[in-house]
């Protein structure tokens, strides 16, 4: 890795900024969102151990997250009570959670590791659905609809200096664990095992021919992914102080998958990018629009079609374009043109979606002729605005298509037997 001065500066800022955030953050709510970002960073990175690195698309990753979250919660409650575990400090709770996640992943992995591709996806779906139904039945362990709650400030740690009660202290705890987990996961990609996992993704047969058991590689990858997912679950429990069965659902897995795809699964920092962006939007956007899942779906599809390597891929492309010999002005012009086209397309889409939402709303008090869209007030009942939205979408799509070099069309099929 080349450490040129600009890179070093960037890394230094990235290292200092999160630590200093609690002094900058205006409110506790902001800090809570930041903590959530960290939790999802670990979750998305752990998802990417199986998805991006080993090439396994899993819908039961949330089960490991849930296992960790509940293990940590029960451990905290046991530590706060009287018994064998009484007096254990809060800050070590991610360790039992890691173990719980890894153990669950090991058990599930025994079923899963022999399969790849679509069969793997189907088995994870079956396992996730089964787990959710089972867990739903055992209120004594998982607390039913209300879930299990904890009190993270159950005792003082570090010579009584910290109680982890204030959001700021919880944030630092989560940050420390996130940094550790992310560092370990980054190291993992550098190990021989990490390389083997990537090789299994690219060409399983060749790995087998070189004398490696791909079953074992996938199993180990799943166990590690499950462990870090469990750790993320513990951090979630510490942040929210409440965990529920919802954590196991297919949707949680899908959200982590969205982060990896949108951020870029082929680059280590891709999932971090996706996690920070999506978890923030997930908290903030529902306050402004009722159609957040719609936008998420649209962006996800657009990324898959136009930029398979996600935001990280786009960033890399831009950096490469600038490094390439040739006129920088031209490169900049093309980039700006594209950005403008995408912005126009996005604005048209937002306009159409917001107007449609308001128009179809069944609540009587909704004002249909003054829809707030990005600070503007538009009339959803007037055809003018609809034509404008369609024109913007068409113009943006045209611009994006003609300002981007055409990708190789891949319509024709190849026998898939």
């Amino acid at each position, binding site marked *: 890795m080349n450490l040129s001065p600009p890179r070093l500066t960037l890394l230094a800022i990235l290292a200092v900024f999160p630590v200093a955030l609690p002094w900058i953050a205006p409110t506790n709510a902001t800090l809570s969102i930041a903590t959530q970002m960290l939790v999802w960073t670990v979750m998305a990175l752990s998802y990417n151990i199986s998805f991006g690195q080993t*090439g396994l*698309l899993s819908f039961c990753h949330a089960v490991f997250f849930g296992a960790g979250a509940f293990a940590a919660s029960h451990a905290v409650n046991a530590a706060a009570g009287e018994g064998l575990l009484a007096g254990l400090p809060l800050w070590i709770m991610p360790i039992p959670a890691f173990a719980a996640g890894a153990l669950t992943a090991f058990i599930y992995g025994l*079923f899963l590791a022999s*399969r790849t*591709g*679509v*069969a793997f*996806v*189907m*088995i994870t*779906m*079956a*396992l996730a*659905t*089964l787990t959710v*139904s*089972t867990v739903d*039945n*055992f*209120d*004594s*362990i998982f607390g039913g609809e209300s879930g299990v709650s904890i009190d993270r400030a159950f005792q003082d740690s570090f010579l009584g200096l910290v109680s982890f009660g204030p959001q700021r202290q919880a944030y630092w705890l989560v940050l420390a664990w996130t940094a550790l987990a992310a560092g370990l996961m980054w190291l993992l990609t550098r190990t021989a095992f990490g390389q083997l996992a990537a090789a299994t993704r690219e060409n399983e047969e060749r790995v087998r021919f070189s004398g490696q058991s791909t079953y074992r590689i996938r199993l180990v990858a799943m166990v590690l992914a499950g462990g870090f997912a469990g750790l993320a679950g513990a951090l979630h429990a510490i942040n929210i102080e409440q965990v529920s069965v919802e954590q196991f659902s*297919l949707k949680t897995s*899908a959200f982590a*998958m969205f982060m990896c*795809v949108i951020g870029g699964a082929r680059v280590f920092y891709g999932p971090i990018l996706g996690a920070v962006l999506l978890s923030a939007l997930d908290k903030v956007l529902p306050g402004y629009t009722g*159609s957040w*899942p*719609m936008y*998420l*779906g*649209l962006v*996800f*599809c657009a990324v*898959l*079609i136009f930029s*398979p390597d996600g935001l990280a891929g786009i960033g890399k492309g831009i950096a490469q374009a600038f490094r390439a010999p040739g006129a920088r002005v031209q490169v900049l012009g093309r980039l700006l043109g594209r950005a403008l086209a995408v912005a126009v397309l996005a604005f048209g889409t937002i306009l159409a*979606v917001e107007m*449609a*939402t308001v128009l*179809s*709303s*069944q609540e009587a008090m909704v004002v249909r002729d003054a829809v707030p869209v990005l600070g503007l007030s538009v009339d959803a009942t007037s055809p003018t605005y609809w034509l404008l939205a369609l024109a913007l979408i068409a113009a943006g799509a045209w611009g994006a298509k003609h300002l981007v070099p055409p*990708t190789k*069309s*891949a*319509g024709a*099929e*190849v*026998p*898939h*037997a």
Partner: protein
Amino acid sequence: MDVLPFVILNGALTGMLLFMLAAGLTLVYGLMGIINFAHASFYMLGAYLGYQFTVTLGFVPGLILAPAVLGLLGVAFRRLILFRIGIQDQVRQLLITFGAAMVVTEGVQMIWGRYAVAYHAPRAMLEPLFNLGGLDFPIYRFFILAVATGLFVAIYGLLRFSRVGLILTAAQARPQMVRAMGYDLDHIHDLVFGLGLAVAGLAGPMIGVYPVMAERIITLLFVVVVVGGLGSLIGALVVSLVLGLIDTAAVTYRISLEPVVNSLFGPQERGTFLFDIASINTTTFAPMLPYLLMLLVLLLRPRGLMGQRDL
């Protein structure tokens, strides 16, 4: 025990409706290798379209128009979206249909709201056809059974005995060769994709039109496809019927673990582990059974009941 005929009839009905949804999914997978996560969302769109057409135009036009529109939308989806991804990377293809499922579901909720809508068959069709042990069996249910059976016969006949079926079968093994012989495979596949969605669209409003209908059913559809065997119409039919019967029987004959636990350990307090065990019964267990079945099939017989090749 004169509810048994009723259980069988209702089970068959649920099963046939499930089959109508799964038929398109299994054909599209078997013949084109497309795993369409958006299938159930399109079915949901078809249900709402069916509701809309029925309200504005009447029962029969709704029955015809909704599947037709849905079929065309399906072809557009294949041409505009799926073609961009290509078929080589199955996981990426699966992801794009997953995203499309989200967009379509959200779109439907955006247009028709997040509430269930009331879809009614004409009053004449709700009259009882016959009476079984004190329970009425409406004409409408018989009508659905007849439509589904007719569809199965038609699709099976089309694939088995027609020229299109022959070409499709050949294209499964040697697509290049079939193309070289001058057949426009893309158009034939459009037809299959569109028809698969049209059939699902026909089933659309028959079960009930509500906002979470797509996510409720999509995993169950994959169970039918996987357990029945990829691309196997008969396999899908058998599994659908079995699942329908299990579902109906489990609700009708409610068997609980409570007597067993209570006789062993005495009555249990709410909130204890044994109480949770005791509260397990066939109604809570039945929805899990399909997934257990799928798990077993995937582990022991990956080609499914009647499939030709492994998943």
